[in-house]
């Protein structure tokens, strides 16, 4: 019970922090150029929705899209971290064959799936707003798409095996292989020189940008942990319910 309360508190705090991150970015941070959109650094960042500036409507739209960045990157990094947690529990399951490790791995993967979908959606919105296309085979996008496919494949695999222990073993093994594969995918498109220019290059971040970013990152990790804990709690309740049903029938 205490863990559930902690989880709910963390969820609220995490949500607040992420919101603070976004609002701070809206009102305080300096704006830099991304991709093909160039924004003047001296333009005020106040009153965003009215788009009052020399550049007019174009400025307003592009300006908003840059702020997605403050949500998108924390979610992406959090998704990778939670993926790591899932792989850790998968290794523990294979070592000890304890069922609760498999449940933990599965729930961590569900959280990863949620974050991965959020990353892809916000990333898509961002590419549309910044570059005008819905999708581009840029290295980072491609490799993240591969990670999405891996996480989806995990659940497809889980659903197609009937026997429970075999399902757990297969899923754990695949989780480990997928976690090894994801960073290799990230690196490979970076290391092999290609014709596609890497459009999105990150330089250093201003202090005014860095602080909301870090706040957002911590907030997102808190949300991740909270979702995981709450799902875990739900699983425990379901198991208790199943055991109670069985004891009533038997």
């Amino acid at each position: 019970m205490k863990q559930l309360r902690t989880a709910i508190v963390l969820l609220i705090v995490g949500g607040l922090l992420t919101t603070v991150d976004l609002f701070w970015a809206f009102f305080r941070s300096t704006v830099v150029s991304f991709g093909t959109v160039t924004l003047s650094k001296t333009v005020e960042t106040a009153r965003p929705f009215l788009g009052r500036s020399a550049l007019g409507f174009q400025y307003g739209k592009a300006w908003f899209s840059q702020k997605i960045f403050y949500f998108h990157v924390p979610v992406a990094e959090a998704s990778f971290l939670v993926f790591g947690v899932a792989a850790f529990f998968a290794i523990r399951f294979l070592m000890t064959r304890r069922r609760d490790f498999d449940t933990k791995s599965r729930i961590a993967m569900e959280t990863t799936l949620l974050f991965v979908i959020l990353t892809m959606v916000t990333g898509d919105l961002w590419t549309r707003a910044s570059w005008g296309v819905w999708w581009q085979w840029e290295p980072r996008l491609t490799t993240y798409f591969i990670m999405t496919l891996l996480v989806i494949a995990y659940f497809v695999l889980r659903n197609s095996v009937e026997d429970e222990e075999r399902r757990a073993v297969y899923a754990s093994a695949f989780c480990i292989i997928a976690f090894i594969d994801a960073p290799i995918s990230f690196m490979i498109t970076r290391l092999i020189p290609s014709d596609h220019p890497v459009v999105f290059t990150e330089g250093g971040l201003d202090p005014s940008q860095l602080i909301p970013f870090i706040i957002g990152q911590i907030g997102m990790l808190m949300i991740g942990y909270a979702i995981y804990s709450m799902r875990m709690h739900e699983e425990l309740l379901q198991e208790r319910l199943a055991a109670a049903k069985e004891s009533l029938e038997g």
Partner: protein
Amino acid sequence: MAKISAMRQFRAILKKDIVMELRTKEMLTSMGLYTLLTLVVYYVALSRAGNGFDVRLIAGGLLWLAFLFTSMLGLNRSLVHEKDQGCLEALLLSPLDRPVIFFGKAVGNLIFLLIVEVLTIPIFIFMFLASSPIVGPIWEIALALLVGAIGIAGIGTLLATMSVNTSGKDFILAVLFIPIMFPLLYAVVAATSGVIIGDPGYQHLFWTSMSIGGGYDVIMLVAAYGLYEFIVGA
């Protein structure tokens, strides 16, 4: 009773696969025919591209596309027999080390894959690259094929052992296999295309891709070796 050495165990499993294949010739003919049919589909796909179209630009990719799907077919076949005729249980009961089973099956798959590749390359060159010659040395293409085949056979054997026990079989293998294969595929297609097209600086691209592909092979083989024991025993 003396313990059978690992080398003898490995050779026994390999010999079993090869003898069975020589008797039925099922896997080689089906894989070879499948690749040939894929080439026919390539012709249809490229038929509207016009005469000025330089096939060399996509030749590397086309080649590996054919190999990827043929290998999925072959991997599935090689393990379906084991399951249908209860061979896998028999292997588990016999005094064999589990990792040796992995190496035996993986090397068997590798040999069949290499045979299909070696037979396909001349046909592919004959059909599509007759007018535009390959710039780089042929042995570099052979090296790329070897590195790719090792990776496919290694991780493919593990995933095929998993997928043959599921309800989706071929489909599950494809869903699991292709995302995992992505880095290797990217590397070997870059290497093969570099050699075929021969843009300046392709040697550097080739060796970079080969080293990454080799690194991937090593990592994935170690992972598959470690995990196979759990998979085959489940």
